[in-house]
C-alpha cells in the first residue's frame, strides 16, 4: 500500500493510503475519544467525539471516517476540541438517566470513564430525566433504555455480523429508541438468536447480562475481530 505523509499535532507522520485519521492517530499512540466507533463495525460518525481539526476545513471533521491524505495538517486536541468533547459527553449524561452509583456497569462503563478522562466533574445542562422503560423479558439479557447513548453498535453488529437485524431504531431525534422487531418485548423476539454480541459491544449498561455481579460486568469484545478475520480469510479461499 502506498505510503503518505501528514502532520498530526505538529509531528510528521506516515500512514498507509486508505487509513482513517483515527486509525493513524491510534497507531501513533494519539488517543482520540469515540463512543460510537468500534473497529470492525461500519463507521457511523454519530457521537462526534472523534472530531479533529483539519487545516483548510471550515468545521472539525470526524476522524473515524476521514481518510488520511498526503499533506494533511491535523490537530487532534485543541482547547476548542476538548471543550466540544466535554459538552458532547455532558449532553449524553443529561439526555438519559445514567445514575452511575446504581448501574450494573459501574466502573466498567465507557461513558463513565470518558467523562472522568475529559475532566467532567459536573454537567452544565438540564437533566432530562425521560422516563424510559426497562425490558428484562429476555431470559439471559436485559435492556435499560435509560442507559442508552444511541451509539447503535448493537444495531450494526446484529445486522452486519450476526445477520439477524433484530435491533433498529424507532422514532427520531430525542425520541429515538432502540427496538427489537416490531417494538415488542425483547423476550418475544423471533429474530434474536441470543448470541449476546450486542450486549458485549454496548459501551454502557444499556444492554447487560442478567444475574452477573458488578465485578463480572467486564465486557468481552475480542470476538468481533476474530469473526471478521475468519470471514475475510474464508472469502479469500484460505482455510479459516
Amino acid at each position, binding site marked *: 500500500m502506498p505510503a503518505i505523509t501528514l502532520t498530526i499535532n505538529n509531528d510528521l507522520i506516515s500512514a498507509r493510503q486508505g487509513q482513517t485519521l483515527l486509525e493513524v492517530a491510534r497507531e501513533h499512540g494519539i488517543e482520540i475519544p469515540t463512543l460510537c466507533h468500534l473497529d470492525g463495525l461500519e463507521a457511523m460518525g454519530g457521537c462526534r467525539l472523534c472530531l479533529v481539526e483539519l487545516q483548510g476545513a471550515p468545521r472539525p471533521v470526524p476522524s473515524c471516517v476521514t481518510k488520511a491524505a498526503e499533506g494533511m495538517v491535523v490537530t487532534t486536541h485543541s482547547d476548542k476540541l476538548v471543550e466540544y468533547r466535554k459538552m458532547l459527553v455532558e449532553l449524553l449524561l443529561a439526555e438519559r438517566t*445514567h445514575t*452511575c*452509583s446504581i448501574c450494573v456497569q459501574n466502573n466498567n462503563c465507557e461513558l463513565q470513564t470518558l*467523562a*472522568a478522562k475529559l*475532566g467532567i*466533574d*459536573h454537567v452544565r445542562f438540564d437533566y432530562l*430525566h425521560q422516563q424510559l422503560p426497562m425490558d428484562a423479558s429476555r431470559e439471559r439479557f436485559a435492556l435499560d433504555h435509560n442507559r442508552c447513548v444511541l451509539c447503535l453498535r448493537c444495531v450494526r453488529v446484529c445486522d452486519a455480523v450476526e445477520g439477524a437485524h433484530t435491533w433498529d431504531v424507532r422514532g427520531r431525534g430525542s425520541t429515538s429508541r432502540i427496538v427489537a422487531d416490531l417494538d415488542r418485548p425483547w423476550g418475544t423476539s423471533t429474530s434474536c438468536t441470543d448470541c449476546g454480541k450486542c450486549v458485549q459491544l454496548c459501551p454502557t449498561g444499556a444492554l447487560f447480562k442478567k444475574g452477573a455481579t458488578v465485578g463480572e460486568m467486564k465486557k468481552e469484545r475480542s470476538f468481533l475481530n476474530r469473526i471478521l478475520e475468519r470471514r475475510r480469510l474464508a472469502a479469500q479461499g484460505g482455510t479459516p
Partner: protein
Amino acid sequence: MSRLRLATAWLGGCSGCHMSFLDLGEQLIEISDAIELVYGPLVDAKEFPEGMDVTLIEGAVANFENLELLQQIRKRSKLLISFGDCAITGNVTSLRNFFSVDDLLTAVYHAGPGSAPRSDEADQVLPELLPRVLPLHQVVEVDAYIPGCPPDPERILAVLSSLLKGEAVTLSEVQRSFG
C-alpha cells in the same frame, strides 16, 4: 496561622458521603490542627455560622428547606464544594424526577403501606418538596466538585490537602469519576 473554618451540610442524600468523611479515621485527627470543623451533622450547632472558609455539601436540593439552607450557606461561605454525586448530579435522590410530586406523595404516603399523615399535619412535618430535585450548581455558584457515591476518603483528603495548601481543587482522572 488560623485554622481553616470548615462546615459540612447534608441536604437530600443518604449521609453516605459523611460516613466516607468519617472513614478518614486517624487522618481526621492529623488534619484537625489545621482544620476547625464548625458546623455539620457531625457537630452540635443549630444555626449555620457566618464566615466559613469552606463548606462541603452532601445531597441534592430536594425541598424548600434544602433550598433555603443552600442559599444561606452560599452567602456565608467563601468556597462551596459539591460533595458527592447527589450534590453534583442529583444521583439517586433525583430519580423521583420521573414522577410528579403529587403522584409521588400519593404513591408513597397515601396509597402506600401504613397510614398517611393528614395533609395539614403533613405540611407542618414534611418540608415542601420542590417540583424537581436539582444539583447544587443549578441553584447557586459552586466552586469545586468531589464526585463519587460516596467519594472515597482519599478523594476527600486530596481536596482538603489542596485547600490547606491554598491550591485550586483538582482531582486526578481516577479520582473524579461518578459512581
